[in-house]
């Protein structure tokens, strides 16, 4: 992401003053004092980030959007920080929830989007902030400056085809990004962002989330493809998640450990991250995701991720797989594993087998590990 000089972070473009928001007096949103005799007086009562307020000024005109946004996972961060319902919940030691909550709040809660401005006016505060375009309001967030400012390690690298070329020389950007030129909001629409019907515990609980089928399943040629007949229709005997055939390798992380440095500042260290492609059994089969096989991604959490805060905080570590259902943004029309039936069937390289899983994680991944490969095809 291109860096911003500190003065450019707060430099208002003249063009802004001609916009709808620019016609509102600065002090209406930002407080402060004007005219003022000097800088200090001007900044008395200043509200640097008005949309972070409990009752944001944005709601004066955009009440529905503000109310809906505050139910969204971007705002609640439930998936990460809620130890009763979020991704860590099954692993938590029920007797040490309070200690773990402190650790999670210190290390995992800083990156969520809490304000309208973080998408529509400035770069997310988490990534250093600064205006997107001289304080002009942007209806559509910038995919790189907004979305990827937070979703960098996985979505950005995957979407832009930034996987390791030495290991995967043929890796290309997600076809939706290039050459099709679609940005994040083409699928993750503004309407969707601002209309969650309820608060969700985790992202895959959201039944309104974008699905490949929204655009692709209705096409007449879809049902003519043999692979779709075999693996992607109600009549198919073995159902595959779309990404099983259409994704390229994607990013994985492992061994995240957190702590505090000499100054008491929180830090994290991940042991490694790597691009790979693995098909596993679907650990979260549901009416919405009835697939037998899905692509799985190793998540960063380790048995002792929070050891800095105490022993055995994740005493139920094995209650949840470490290779989890994934929806990587590395889509191509025909990925190498889908060039023919034989490219995939009986190809042990593609499947998550016991040997791919570290010994102390095998129990956690029992329901994901593929113990019998699909039979060889001619």
């Amino acid at each position: 992401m291109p860096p911003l000089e500190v003065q450019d972070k707060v430099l208002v473009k003249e063009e802004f003053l001609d916009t709808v928001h620019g016609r509102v007096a600065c002090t209406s949103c930002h407080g402060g004092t004007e005219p003022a005799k000097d800088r200090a007086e001007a900044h008395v009562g200043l509200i640097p980030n008005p949309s972070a307020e409990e009752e944001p000024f944005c709601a004066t005109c955009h009440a529905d959007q503000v109310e809906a946004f505050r139910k969204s996972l971007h705002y609640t961060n439930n998936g990460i920080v809620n130890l009763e319902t979020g991704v860590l919940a099954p692993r938590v030691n029920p007797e040490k929830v309070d200690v773990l909550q402190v650790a999670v709040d210190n290390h995992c809660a800083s990156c969520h989007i809490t304000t309208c401005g973080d998408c529509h006016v400035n770069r997310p505060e988490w990534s250093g902030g600064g205006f997107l375009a001289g304080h002009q309001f942007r209806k559509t967030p910038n995919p790189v400056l907004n979305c990827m400012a937070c979703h960098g390690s996985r979505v950005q690298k995957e979407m832009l085809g930034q996987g390791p070329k030495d290991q995967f020389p043929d890796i290309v950007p997600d076809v939706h990004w290039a050459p099709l030129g679609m940005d994040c909001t083409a699928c993750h629409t503004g309407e969707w962002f601002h209309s969650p019907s309820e608060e969700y515990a985790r992202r895959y609980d959201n039944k309104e989330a974008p699905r490949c089928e929204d655009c692709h399943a209705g096409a007449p040629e879809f049902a003519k493809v043999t692979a779709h007949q075999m693996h992607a229709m109600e009549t198919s005997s073995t159902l595959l998640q779309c990404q099983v055939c259409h994704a390229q390798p994607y990013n994985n992380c492992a061994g995240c450990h957190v702590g505090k440095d000499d100054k008491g500042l929180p830090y994290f260290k991940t042991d490694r991250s790597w691009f790979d492609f693995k098909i596993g059994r679907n650990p979260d089969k549901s009416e919405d995701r009835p697939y037998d096989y899905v692509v799985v991604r190793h998540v960063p959490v380790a048995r002792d991720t929070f050891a800095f805060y105490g022993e055995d905080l994740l005493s139920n570590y094995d209650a949840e797989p470490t290779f989890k259902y994934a929806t990587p943004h590395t889509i191509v029309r025909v990925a190498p594993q889908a060039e023919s039936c034989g490219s995939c069937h009986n190809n042990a390289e593609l499947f998550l087998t016991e040997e791919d899983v570290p010994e102390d994680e095998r129990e956690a991944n029992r329901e994901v590990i593929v113990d019998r490969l699909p039979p060889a095809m001619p």
Partner: protein
Amino acid sequence: MIRSKGGLLLLGGLLALALLLAGCGAQQADEEPASSEEGFTCISCHTSRENLVADLEQNPPPKVEKSTESEGEG
């Protein structure tokens, strides 16, 4: 010449309406004092890169401290 109190009130009302219709933007663009004699306004400083640079040299913003020990991808 206005001879009655009512006429004065009417004129005052019309002037207030004219100001209202001119809008906040116009007020900001045309009437905001830009010098220290009249008092600083938000846009007199925040639309000028030079002013901001000079100001930030005088009043460097507090540094947001982040640990340098973080490693790897989050």
